[in-house]
């Protein structure tokens, strides 16, 4: 039955980035496709289909994701940052991901390949990915999730002065968590009989996340890597502490790069505890240098698990940020 198969073959072709004229029957089909999504999702989809304006895409994507998330988890999506994880935080499995993709394809009139999907782990990944597809931009590098072993292996700063338990790094941001255990040595004296995390140490933790970004998220010049031994703190501006942080608090740290041009990298940073603001830094500046990729002992892509490629502990390199902040 070649006749019957013909239309199917036609629709699998790459769709044009500029939308076709939007007909009334398209609106009816769109309404049907999005019948279980919020009215604002439908509105955003209509606007996108009529104007092709990519600004409406995030609302559509979030609305479609929301529709496939179990109702009791939807509140997470309401006030979520882009770092919300699809599998771990929203309970979306790979089959649900396919359902989301098929609906997004249908609504936004685009095609997504299987291999493009594998790297989408956060809500932010999905938004960025769809946005790049719509605008015809190259796709971003996927968010990397770094466990403590990986952080310890690549960072020049080491315990007991490393204030990151886990982190995720993409090309546009880095996020991390640190739990104040109460065992930190400086809490013995800060303050007398009242352990409070020093604001300077919280700023240090943000600086460490920025270092991790340079090592794992920054795209260096071809043939180069960021030299872990050549990253130093130079300054910070607009720092405000909003909340006293004590043992048991989990600090949620995030930094976003503002400008990264060797030798200067600037970031904005913030720390939250739950939904409460703890520290804001309008600008943190680091200087850094490149080394030739072949001679660089620190692996940039992936965790080095075997002893042969694990870099020597960098404790002796005396965390430069520590020196600067404590000064």
């Amino acid at each position, binding site marked *: 039955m070649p006749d019957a198969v013909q239309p199917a073959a036609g629709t699998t072709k790459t769709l044009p980035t500029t939308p076709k004229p939007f007909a009334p029957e398209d609106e009816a089909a769109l309404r049907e496709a999005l019948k279980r999504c919020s009215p604002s999702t439908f509105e955003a989809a209509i606007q996108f289909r009529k104007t092709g304006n990519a600004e409406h895409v995030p609302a559509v994507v979030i609305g479609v994701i929301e529709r496939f998330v179990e109702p009791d988890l939807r509140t997470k999506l309401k006030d979520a940052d882009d770092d919300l994880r699809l599998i771990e935080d929203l309970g979306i499995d790979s089959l649900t991901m396919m*359902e989301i993709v098929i609906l997004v394809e*249908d609504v936004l009139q685009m095609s997504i390949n299987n291999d493009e999907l594998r790297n989408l782990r956060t809500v932010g990944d999905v938004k960025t990915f769809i946005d790049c597809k719509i605008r015809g931009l190259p796709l971003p590098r996927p968010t990397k999730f770094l466990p403590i072993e990986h952080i310890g292996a690549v960072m020049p700063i080491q315990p007991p002065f490393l204030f990151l338990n886990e982190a995720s790094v993409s090309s546009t941001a880095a996020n991390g968590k640190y739990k104040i255990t109460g065992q930190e040595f400086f809490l013995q004296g800060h303050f007398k009989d009242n352990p409070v995390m020093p604001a300077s140490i919280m700023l240090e933790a943000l600086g460490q996340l920025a270092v991790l970004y340079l090592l794992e998220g920054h795209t260096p010049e071809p043939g180069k890597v960021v030299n872990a031994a050549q990253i130093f703190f130079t300054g910070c501006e607009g720092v405000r502490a909003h909340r006293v942080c004590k043992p048991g608090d989990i600090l949620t740290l995030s930094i976003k790069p503002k400008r990264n041009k060797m030798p200067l990298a600037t970031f904005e940073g913030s720390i939250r505890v739950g939904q409460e603001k703890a520290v804001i830094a309008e600008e943190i500046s680091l200087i850094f240098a490149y080394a030739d990729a072949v001679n660089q002992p620190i692996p940039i892509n992936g965790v080095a698990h075997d002893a042969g490629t694990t870099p020597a502990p960098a404790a002796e390199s005396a965390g430069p940020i520590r020196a600067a902040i404590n000064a």
Partner: protein
Amino acid sequence: MPRVFITGLGFVTSIGNDAATVARNLRELRHGFELYPPFQKPDVPCKVVGTIKEFTTDSTDPEDWTFPARYKIKRELLRSMAPNGLFAHCAMLQAIEDARLAEADVSNPDTGLYAASGGSPYLTHHHHERLLKVGVMRCSPLGIVASIVGTLNFNLVAAFKIQGVSCGFSSACASSAHAIGYAFDDLSLGRQKRVFIVGAEDGNADAILPFAGMRTLSLQADPNLASRPFDAARDGFVGTGGSTVLVLETEDEVVRRGVKPLAELLGWGQASDGYNVAISHPDGEGSARAMRHALRAARIEPAQVGYINAHATSTIIGDISEARAIRAVFKEDAARVAVSSTKALTGHGLSLAGAMESGFCVLGLREGFTPGNAHLTRLEPQCEGLNVLRASLPTAPEIVIKNSSGFGGANVALVYKRLAA
């Protein structure tokens, strides 16, 4: 050899969605037939279906379905189900409660699940149509597991975290009877301690109408007359869907859990006609052999059998074949042993039939009644000499045979025993 007991039942059927309602309707011979709206058009010659009440599954999108509020089913589970999967999920929950099984009793390496349904022609049609219309990459990722034969076991094994044996049976209208037989073997050979038996069918237009082409469906438009097995005026079967779940357990498990079983499964037998792809052997040779095998396995003489729940679907040829098989096996006892087909009340549940009607037999054995053969006005002359019950009896016999037959001439007979009160 360990004895095998039935310890729990769950029903979603045209005559009731719980054991108490089903038992009452069997006793009182109240049928579950209605004029089925999708059939009320000039080009559909048959009109009546054994409909499932309290459920609506007439959308291809499971999120549109409605079902009784006492069942809570997450979207994550619903999305891969066919209508028969929904019915079965609800019947499973009933059976687990009825058998008083804890979560750990359901999910362990010694508990399995055997299932039988014809898949979902309805969803197969929908997903294939979508494939042709919108392209192969825009098909639902769960279209296959929701629609192919096996959808029932895929869904239930995952949803109830079954860790023991599992598979689907496909011998058409003998399927779920086969499932019971093979579960009996697993239990009596010590391979499993407990097996869930699940029969289910969509029972909608796509599942039933293909039988119209074979001219096997009743064209009677009166719901009170359409299904009349063994009646001289019968003109074909009436379709139905739904689900029945039986919990089969070994004696050791019954003792360990301290529960009172509903009935005992003594043994089973099967045999094939070797005759025709769709027509039963005129003398019911395969069916007779299946009954003989089952009685021998159960160590029961024909004289001990009190009731036969017949396969009889209300088709012209099939009912006569089975009557001849009963006469051949029971000889002088044929005029004594009570016979009825409960399809007169429910319609023909296809893959579901063996499990559903086994459930009916167990209900009768537990509650002390024998269901009659409804809608019987004038006995088919070629069935003369059989004791076809025109009304239900207020007592249950000691031993019951449940017959099932499917396409290709597959025949199964199951032997159940009443337990002391």
